[in-house]
């Protein structure tokens, strides 16, 4: 699975995700990626793209969860992202990238690694695979 989220300096947000699915998946099986609110979501608050085990991400409506936690509980993007991944399902099944309307970025995951990269206007960049690099 691949994905991208972006916010411009007017606070406009967008999210996109694409995948080939699951190795050896049943023909006709549809995962979380094309289900808005599960694999991809964006509103005026944040934009989210997820990766992992589709069935768990659908059950947890993970992408919409991040936006809802920010909207209803006032969590920050990082807090909402971490909580949504934490609660999404078994360890090793979920990761996400997200940006918020005020330019925050978060990339939590509960597996060994996630191929990820990010950059912000104030000069922060990160490219990594595992948790500590």
């Amino acid at each position, binding site marked *: 699975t*691949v994905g*991208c989220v*972006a916010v411009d300096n007017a606070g406009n947000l967008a999210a996109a995700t694409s995948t080939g*699915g699951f*190795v050896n998946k049943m*023909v006709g099986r549809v995962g979380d990626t094309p289900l808005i609110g599960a694999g991809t979501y964006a509103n005026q608050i944040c934009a989210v793209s997820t990766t992992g085990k589709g069935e768990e991400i659908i059950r947890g409506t993970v992408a919409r969860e991040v936006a809802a936690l920010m909207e209803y509980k006032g969590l920050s993007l990082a807090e909402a992202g971490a909580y949504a991944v934490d609660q999404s399902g078994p360890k090793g099944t979920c990761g996400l990238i997200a940006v918020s309307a005020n330019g925050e970025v978060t990339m939590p995951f509960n597996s060994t690694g996630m191929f990820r990269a990010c950059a912000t*206007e104030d000069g922060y960049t990160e490219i990594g695979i595992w948790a500590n690099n």
Partner: protein
Amino acid sequence: MVGWAIALHGGGGEIPLDLPDERRIPREIALRHCLDLGVSALKSGKSPLDVVELVVRELENHPDFNAGKGSVLTAGGTVEMEASIMDGKTKRCGAVMGLTTVVNPISLARLVMEKTPHINLAFDAAEAFARAHGVETAEESHFITPENIDRLKQAKEFDRVQLDYTMPTPKEPESFGDSQTG
């Protein structure tokens, strides 16, 4: 004053810490290339919707990631790709699933968002929509890589062990560097 920001991913899972260089380095180079592409698009004033489509198209075209070219295979040895896109300002969105010939599924998802009153289009109808809108398509061989054929073979071998209900300890499938969960 809000600052711009961008993030992208190439999938996750149990990526072994001793991933061989020949699998790790091309992916890191691709991540950096795609990040640079996205950052320069944002700096040039492109809308976030254009930026995320541009970056995901680039990732779809890279054979080391599980989307577009390099998509993993179904139990039938075929590809069935899916994608979605959403604009935060308007909440307009589009999604496609069950694609077998579309080179860039994310761009078809955007066409569903912009050219239809719907959100989801699937399988044969999505393929027909692609042809009707002149979206680039290719033979299935374009998407299938030798690496993913091996992955399917291993996954099937593994399943066969289970199906046989024999109780050897299943052989650990060789990890190809990223998650088999996409």
